[in-house]
């Protein structure tokens, strides 16, 4: 507090919070790098049919175990499929799972959190104990069990992560509701006769935008890693659909691990790069949207 008295008083231009966040985000260099990488990856995944030189499931027997070459940048796999094409389509799967699952659980978590915070009392207690329960079992274990019971597929992976990932979001939303419920602008709205649903939609959700964006961004990184782990264990996306984790699974065989490194190192790098980019963006968003970091201007 004493710092402000020391320097000259600077009257800043009037800036909307979003403009301020935008400016701060642009100053976060890793976040910019992450955004650029992510945009390239997302565009490549969306236009995979145009970017990938070949059909990822097409088999060419002359390509079996072939090392990288000019025509096949990353060589061929054990069945004679083009590895580079499979990597591109694999990112598609990773991103679909990442965004799909996180979209699902942010929605569930937000609704449960709002409900829990507003209802209070026994309902709140029950929902919070449910949250504790789900949090006390590692998500990977739950997701593995879920995928095994339902049967492994792309949709069960999305459903597993989407239906089991909500507790973190629910806690944050509930916390925000509890602290904002007593805020003056909410009391004013209530005094004017606004109903809970209206308050939730018009007054609370805008305030939740920042924290939720940050949670969702880191969530996407986590979901991509979870999908990769599931597919690596053979419980995720099933072959012949290309998935980065599934491609790395082949390296479990010592011969592949040692002699055909182009089968597992590129998908590994691509996962790491994607997740790193998402994490960078998340760091930038956190710094930009977190009201507590105001002092950094």
């Amino acid at each position, binding site marked *: 507090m004493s710092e402000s008295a020391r320097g000259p008083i600077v009257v800043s231009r009037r800036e909307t919070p979003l403009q301020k966040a935008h400016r701060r985000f642009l100053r976060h260099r890793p976040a910019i790098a992450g955004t650029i990488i992510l945009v390239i990856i997302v565009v490549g995944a969306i236009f995979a049919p145009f970017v990938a030189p070949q059909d990822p499931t097409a088999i060419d027997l002359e390509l079996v175990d072939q090392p990288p070459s000019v025509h096949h940048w990353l060589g061929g796999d054990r069945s004679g499929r083009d590895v580079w094409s499979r990597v591109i389509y694999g990112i598609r799967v990773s991103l679909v799972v990442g965004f799909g699952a996180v979209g699902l659980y942010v929605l569930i978590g937000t609704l449960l959190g709002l409900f829990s915070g507003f209802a209070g009392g026994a309902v709140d207690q029950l929902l919070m104990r449910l949250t504790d329960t789900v949090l006390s079992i590692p998500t990977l274990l*739950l997701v*593995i*069990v879920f995928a095994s019971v339902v049967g492994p597929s792309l949709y069960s992976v999305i459903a597993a992560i989407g239906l089991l990932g909500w507790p973190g979001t629910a806690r944050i939303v509930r916390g925000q509701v509890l602290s904002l419920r007593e805020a003056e602008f909410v009391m004013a709205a209530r005094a004017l006769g606004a109903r809970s649903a209206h308050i939730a939609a018009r007054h609370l959700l805008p305030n939740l935008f920042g924290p939720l964006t940050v949670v969702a961004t880191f969530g996407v990184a986590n979901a991509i890693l979870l999908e990769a*782990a599931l597919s*690596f*264990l053979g419980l995720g996306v099933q072959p012949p659909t290309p998935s980065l984790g599934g491609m790395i699974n082949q390296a479990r065989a*010592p011969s592949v691990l040692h002699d055909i490194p182009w089968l597992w190192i590129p998908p590994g790098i691509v996962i*790491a790069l994607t997740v*790193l980019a998402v994490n960078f963006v998340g760091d930038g968003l956190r710094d930009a949207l977190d009201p507590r970091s105001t002092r950094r201007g």
Partner: protein
Amino acid sequence: MGSYIVRRVLIGIPVLIGITIVGFVILAVAPGDPVSGLVDPERLATMTPAQLEQLRRELGLEGPMTVRYCRWLGACSPRGRGIGILLSDRGLPNLFPAPLGGGSNGILHGDFGYSIKSGRPIVEEVVPRIEPTLLLMGTSLLLAVGVGISFGVVTAVRQYGKLDYFLTTVTLMMISTPTFVLGLILLYVFGVSLRLLPVGGMFTLGREFDLGDRIGHLAMPAMILGLANAAPIMRYVRTAMLEVLNSDYIRTARAKGLVGRAVLLRHGLRNALLPVITVVALLLPDLVAGAIITEQVFSWPGMGLLAVRAAQDRDPSLMMAIVLMVGAAVLGSNLLADVAYGIADPRVRYE
């Protein structure tokens, strides 16, 4: 202090019940005949359909979900009617342990059913896996805490220095790379290419136990799991340390003329380390998840390997037992951490 612990335990009870419900749901929704996971398969094979029907009734597989849950838990007697449902054959509450006059079926009595794949009781499957997993997770946790704290302090003291940037970047890269990719890279370098370390398992087959051999097998999995979990600890210690270093009492200590290192260790670190107790407890689910993957990569014969096998075999009783054990372990360690934190930091208790 006493009331604090009691309050904390009471909060844990509904969660423990929640975990058992999760386990029960796994069994209930798993495909296949539930009777196959409850009875010795050898006995099952020799039964006539009429006997099977009788057995189903005895096991309490019919009836409403709540009664089935109660019987599965071992709080209700499978054979009982009316009030007798809560009492064992010896007339005492069924949920007592068998030697104290309680029942003998249900998970409260250690009866987790049978593996549909191997046909052996779940307890026989799970118990031999506990020690390897504890060995791996314990070693990794020590490594994670050691590396995490020391790197956290170093990066905080040298904030925005080269070392800080380097370590922070490396950590972020570690967090972003899947554990199994890191594991495979180590395996590729040290196991297959340089042939310095064994590529998997817990001991060399056909050789007697020797410590060097065990450490050799433990080195790579423990390193992967430890370093992967060091990252969050490091980030946490860095933040906590920075906060402490900017506080007034540190300034006072420096003003008193204390040497840098004394201020850092005696005043700073001690306070920054308090919350690490909580962070370590919160890390346990991640540690378990990491162990599942690491054990898979290095064929370490622990619970993680068993969990994946159970899922691949779609073995409901085995999955249920593992989820229950992991959930209970995490809950227990959270409780322990909260109590430890309450002892270490008296401010917590009076909230």
